[in-house]
């Protein structure tokens, strides 16, 4: 009985258990199931319906293993590891059960691999090849089900391929919180169907395509566009909103084909929202590929020289009439380089923040945030304690004629029509953006920058985590990363920022910004090109 007045306490009992799997011992936290314990040892027990981010239902029976002391095989996803448990995953009984389950699963599976989207990343293919490889014993026709069922705005169901694992139902129930999918019929006529009166339109619907082990659920956005094994994968961060879900960019031939979530227990778990998945379409719409002066293409040196002259003239005339607009759509490094150029080299202090306006309906407790800019917090960090005036204030200042020159980073600046006209009439409107929409179309000098999927850099999400983006491919045309444009602009204006590599920008930023002190390791390691493969292959 401990004295409540004592500050020290006896150490709590360890919350771990030790069990033996295939002759090897492993210690896991209490409450871990056997399949995760086996994964720790590097043993992959095959499973279809088990997913670490979803509840355990043990419907597929693919993960059956032999546990000593139990008369029947146990599903390892449901069996919780206990101290002294002895598990065999590779004995004849378990292996036979695995083969039998695969045979049952394949009994009604259509011979669709050549036309199925999932081919190449299909769990059924992988498990059959790893654990079974027996010839078919079927001599009766397979059960036929509808093959093109429109479940919702984004998803198509092929009921024949479904192996009835119910992962999609659990995703809708548990991740999205909306009951939109159900099983109907019984036995081998079971099918996935939408719940009465509902369709599969929740904002996390495409996660069901990710978790589906076969090609039953396919996303309309991606189906029939690209074979999975031809894609290259690059890790990055979604630019859709301030949550900053970790993603993988799947690309080939300098074109992004889809975005999928990357597991990060701190930020997004295993999931991401549908809108975030579609942000890659922006990479190919209305991109600026060449610098322009007054709307006409120009060479880089000409454009930079012209822009530098305009800014220098404006600064000389009146330093306080020069406005700098930062972008929460661009990386920390871009904003930092701009901040240094503006503050230290040019001595201007009129700062604004652009970006898209908030969408309050988006905010849910799951993943989506009302702020659809990925790096607002990063801009705040980079600028330190300076006040962040938004587009509204910029509009007012423009109306009052206080601004004579604007250097804008990013094209997402939500100005009303009148302020936009005034901005267009400015003598010096220099825009660094990746798209020629918005204010970039009205600029005197427009400098093309690389988009989020083409830059190496960091963004800070709403939780304050600094996350690294990796470039998937080179920017189109003559576009350059924004920090490099800013460095060259500074050079053209006679002030050397001296950045040769984006890592230098990051290191300097981390050294000087209080909130980022000690975060130098967030830069991570460089990746090399990896081709998407399944089952222990690599490109």
């Amino acid at each position, binding site marked *: 009985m401990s004295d409540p007045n004592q500050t020290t306490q006896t150490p709590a009992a360890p919350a771990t258990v030790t069990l033996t799997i295939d002759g090897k011992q492993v210690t896991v936290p209490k409450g871990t199931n056997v399949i995760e314990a086996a994964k720790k040892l590097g043993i992959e027990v095959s499973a279809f319906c088990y997913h670490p981010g979803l509840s355990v239902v043990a419907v597929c029976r693919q993960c059956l293993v032999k546990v000593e002391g139990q008369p029947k095989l146990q599903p390892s996803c449901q069996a919780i590891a206990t101290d002294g448990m002895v598990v065999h995953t590779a004995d004849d009984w378990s292996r036979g059960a695995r083969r039998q389950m695969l045979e049952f699963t394949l009994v009604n599976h*259509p*011979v669709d*691999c050549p036309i199925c989207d999932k081919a*190449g990343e299909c769990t059924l*293919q992988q498990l059959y090849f790893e654990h079974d490889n027996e*010839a078919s014993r079927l001599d009766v026709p397979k059960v036929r089900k509808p093959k093109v069922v429109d479940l919702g705005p984004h998803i198509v169901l092929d009921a024949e391929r479904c192996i009835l694992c119910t992962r999609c139902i659990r995703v809708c129930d548990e991740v999205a919180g909306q009951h939109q999918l159900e099983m109907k019929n019984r036995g081998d006529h079971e099918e996935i169907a939408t719940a009465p009166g509902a369709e599969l339109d929740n904002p996390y619907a495409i996660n069901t395509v990710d978790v589906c082990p076969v090609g039953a659920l396919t996303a309309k956005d991606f189906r029939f566009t690209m074979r999975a094994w031809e894609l290259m994968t690059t890790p990055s961060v979604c630019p859709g909103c301030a949550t900053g879900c970790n993603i993988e960019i799947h690309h080939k031939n300098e074109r992004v084909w889809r975005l999928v979530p990357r597991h990060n227990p701190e930020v997004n778990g295993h999931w991401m929202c549908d809108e975030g998945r579609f942000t890659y379409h922006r990479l190919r719409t209305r991109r600026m590929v060449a610098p322009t002066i007054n709307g006409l293409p120009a060479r880089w040196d000409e454009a930079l020289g012209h822009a530098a002259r305009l800014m220098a003239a404006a600064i000389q005339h009146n330093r306080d009439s020069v406005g700098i607009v930062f972008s929460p759509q661009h990386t920390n490094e871009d904003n930092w380089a701009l901040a240094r150029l503006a503050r230290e080299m040019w001595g201007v202090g009129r700062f604004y923040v652009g970006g898209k306006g908030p969408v309050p309906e988006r905010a849910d407790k799951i993943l989506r945030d009302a702020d659809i800019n990925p790096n607002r917090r990063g801009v705040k960090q980079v600028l330190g304690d300076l006040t962040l005036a938004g587009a509204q204030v910029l509009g007012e200042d423009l109306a009052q004629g206080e601004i004579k020159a604007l250097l804008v980073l990013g094209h997402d600046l939500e100005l009303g029509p009148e302020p936009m006209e005034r901005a267009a009439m400015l003598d010096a409107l220099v825009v660094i953006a990746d798209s020629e929409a918005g204010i970039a179309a009205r600029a005197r000098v427009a400098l093309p920058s690389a988009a989020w999927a083409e830059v190496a850099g960091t963004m800070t999400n709403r939780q304050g985590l600094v996350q690294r983006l990796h470039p998937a491919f080179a920017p189109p045309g003559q576009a350059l990363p924004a920090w490099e444009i800013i460095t060259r602009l500074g050079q053209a204006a006679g002030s050397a920022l001296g950045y040769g590599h984006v890592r230098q920008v990051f290191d300097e930023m981390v050294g000087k910004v209080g909130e980022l002190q000690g975060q130098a390791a967030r830069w991570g390691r460089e990746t090399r090109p990896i081709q998407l493969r*399944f089952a*222990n*292959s690599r490109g």
Partner: protein
Amino acid sequence: MAEIKKLVLGRKVVEDLDEDQELPHELMTVNMGPSHPAMHGTVRIVLTVDGERVVESDVQPGFLHRCFEKESEYATYTQIFPYTDRLNYISPMINNVGYAMAVEKLLGLTDAVPVRAQYIRVIVSEISRITDHLTCVGASAMELGAFTPFLYFLKAREWLFELLEELSGARLTYSYVRIGGVVSDLTPDFNQRLTDLLDKIDGVMLEVEGLLNNNRIFRDRMEGVGPFSAAEALSFGLTGPCLRACGVDYDVRKDNPYLVYDRLEFDVPVGTAGDCFDRYLVRLEEMRQSIRMLRQAMRDIPAGPVIVDDPRVALPPKKEAYNTIEAMIRHFKHIVDGIRVPPGEAYAWCEGGNGELGFFVVADGTGRPWKCYCRSPSLINTQTVSKTIQGHLISDVVPIFGMINMIGGECDK
């Protein structure tokens, strides 16, 4: 006479000439190749000659470099077979077999390859060896001016190519061998056709030998040209007919028998002087031995499967693959992922047309090799050319280079 001398010697005054003195000379750098009729498969030799005599030479390969090794790192193990075809493109079956042996070594399947498949591999290898030697001897003879043997031998080669075309579908780039066996069985009348062909080739060889062996011009141009001592040959890494012509009886098929060579009776011809004529004779005799081996192999070949029975290595039969999901999946995983080879490094070698053809394969557990290096005998043999032609005439470069049998595809990979 004095006028003629003036013309010949340019501006020199006749009185300055002393007939006992040497004529003024200087070294000249001449380029031979890469586009040259005698430089088989593009090789450039930069010759520094003193008149007609070669003082120094720089043999520059690499004009046919097609990045075999780099491409292999991005292709599955089965996809590499077409690349190996294009290494020594005159005897492609041997390349296929050598590469398959290296991967089978890593998979531990060397003994599991069915005996019929092993016999078939030996048969097609020996046919490829015959085509290789036919081409080499024929082309070298043609370069020395003997056009008829070239045509006769190429006609014989055509018969063999037609036979292999029936078997595999291609005349030159067969991709017939697979990991664990061969892709399909012999055609039903293969035995009969091959036996007939071997008789015909015997006849052709007799004819050509009759034309060349005691031919004054041929012998003068080949005998004593480019002799090589055994010790030097070994130091240069020479293997194959060129080494055997020097007197060293190193033949992989006898030294380290692979497939079913230990069940076949054959001799290894060995020369004495290591010059071009010995190499020519060794090659002719090797063709005879190959024919002998083929006759035995066709007699002894057993019935049975032609590919190993392991579902992780062999593709399923097409009928099953199109009609059952299980075989479809298996087919898919083979093509997309490749044959998963456990991590390791192994070197397997076989007797190619030009010498020891080996493949050093580094596997990393995936379906693509980490590294696939080809020990190409042509590259190593060609290194000796520079040494051999020193001191010889330019016209001797032709038989020396011809008898090395540098195949551009293998030399430059």
